[in-house]
């Protein structure tokens, strides 16, 4: 077994992990379980990335390539094909299995950047058999864009989040028939631009207020029954429709991946990720976190930005230079669902990321009684970013607790 002692260990080589390792610099090791770094960017071959970070519109692989350049210039070491299997939090000691067998790493600081997994079919508890032909959207995307396989001939897509919409277009362009995209909510889950350029451009129907009531087929899926749902999302009798499809694609949500740190890390139950301060430090002092394992972000640009913050903070911690500050707790007030960070640290560049639980036109975002910002429209599908100026931060950190709320303007 190989042993390694490093300043900063980054677990996960997606956008957050690459940005974290690049900003942590030398004496940093990044572990990626896949054969190459880049994470989900490698399979997101469509455009729409990078407008904030690089001021131009890039495809996922191009965004990943830029981050890889930053990573290579930083002289951080990267091991691909290496999976972390356990973390002993006294120490800490990290156990991993890679191309050369077992690896034991003693880091001074760790950046947890594992991203998220897709919500699986089992979570829907749909009646019927469990035939082949049911895929999560990300898996289908990997088949088509990395391996060059189509998952079937005729597909129904459940969930109109961005991945579902983008896969509808992708499968259609590659020659599959896409029968419809089915969405349980009365509005599409993804961005309007994706409804337009993925569905409307190719006349793919979007069925709102519909859910799946049954799947059919023994070895391979032969069909799916859907029904209209009422306000409490219960199927309306008599509204059933049958689609003869051999493929069902699910785009029903992402779940932050935190299994290995759960036993010893305080988690925010709403974000479903570790509680972090504005330096992306968790409540376990040597553990930092960034990316979709903290909360599901909208944009990879944001993920890279928090990754950079986590990497820089972890490097300071490893050198004993991260000041131990008194923290100001951030508390969710009216209409705040997701909120990162959970607490503020003085003197650091600070951005709040929040998501509302219900849409408002002409809203006002309040951070304590120090910041009130007008926001023309707020929707649950769009994360709000509040950059906190230094003078406002100085006022905020005088308090023990600051409430964040989004009200009618």
């Amino acid at each position, binding site marked *: 077994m190989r042993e390694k002692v490093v300043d900063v260990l980054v677990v996960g080589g997606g956008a957050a992990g690459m940005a974290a390792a690049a900003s942590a610099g030398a004496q940093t090791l990044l572990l990626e379980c896949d054969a190459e770094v880049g994470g989900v960017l490698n399979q997101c*071959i469509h455009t729409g990335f990078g407008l904030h970070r690089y001021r131009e519109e890039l495809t996922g692989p191009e965004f990943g390539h830029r981050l890889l350049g930053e990573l290579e210039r930083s002289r951080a070491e990267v091991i*691909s094909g290496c999976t972390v299997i356990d973390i002993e939090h006294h120490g800490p000691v990290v156990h991993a299995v890679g191309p050369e067998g077992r690896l034991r790493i003693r880091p001074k600081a760790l950046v947890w950047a594992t991203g998220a997994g897709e919500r699986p079919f089992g979570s829907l508890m749909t009646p019927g058999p469990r035939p082949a032909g049911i895929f999560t959207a990300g898996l289908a995307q990997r088949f088509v864009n990395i391996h060059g396989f189509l998952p079937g001939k005729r597909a129904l897509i459940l969930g109109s989040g961005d991945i579902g919409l983008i896969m509808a277009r992708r499968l259609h362009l590659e020659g599959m028939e896409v029968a419809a995209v089915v969405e349980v909510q009365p509005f599409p889950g993804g961005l309007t631009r994706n409804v337009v350029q993925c569905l409307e451009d190719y006349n793919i129907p979007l069925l709102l207020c519909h859910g799946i009531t049954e799947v059919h087929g023994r070895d391979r899926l032969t069909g799916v029954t859907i029904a209209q749902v009422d306000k409490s999302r219960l199927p309306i009798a008599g509204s059933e429709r049958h689609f003869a499809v051999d493929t069902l694609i699910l785009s029903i949500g992402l779940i932050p991946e935190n299994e290995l740190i759960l036993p010893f890390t305080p988690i925010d139950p709403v974000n479903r990720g570790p509680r972090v301060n504005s330096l992306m430090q968790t409540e376990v002092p040597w553990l930092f976190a960034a990316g979709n394992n903290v909360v599901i972000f909208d944009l990879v640009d944001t993920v890279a930005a928090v990754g950079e913050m986590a990497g820089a903070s972890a490097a300071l911690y490893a050198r004993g230079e991260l000041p131990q500050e008194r923290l100001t707790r951030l508390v969710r007030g009216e209409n705040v669902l997701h909120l990162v960070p959970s607490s503020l640290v003085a003197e650091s560049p600070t951005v709040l990321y929040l998501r509302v639980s219900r849409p408002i036109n002409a809203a006002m975002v309040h951070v304590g009684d120090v910041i009130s910002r007008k926001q023309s429209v707020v929707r649950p599908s769009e994360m709000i970013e509040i950059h906190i100026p230094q003078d406002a931060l100085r006022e905020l950190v005088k308090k023990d607790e600051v409430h964040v709320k989004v009200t009618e303007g």
Partner: protein
Amino acid sequence: MEKKLTCVSCPIGCGITVRIEDNVVTRIAGNQCPRGETYAQQEAIDPMRVLSTSVRVIGGEFPLVSVKTDRPVPKRLILQIMNYVRTLSIEAPVKIGQVVAEYLLGMSASLVATREVHLAQQRTSRSISENSL
């Protein structure tokens, strides 16, 4: 005639109203930036899109390379372009930005690679291929 469009030039997705008289756009409203105006001008007359897809690679560490058109192409021709792209293949190694096909359907647009694909044997660690699934 008035048309309601959604700008797809960036994730904000502004709703834009255009007035068209005799096939000429005479008024554009609702865009938050100049890109929206350019978009609406074109969208009202002949919608254009950047196409991203993939091309088969021979002898590479991956069986595919992701590609995009280097400029928007007419939406009405996208399925035709896809049929052509399906017939293409390229030999590894492929560089990011490398031109994979020029003059798509006789237009000025090219197809360019959006990632690197190294030769199959250049990689020492486990590489993804069909049989690793």
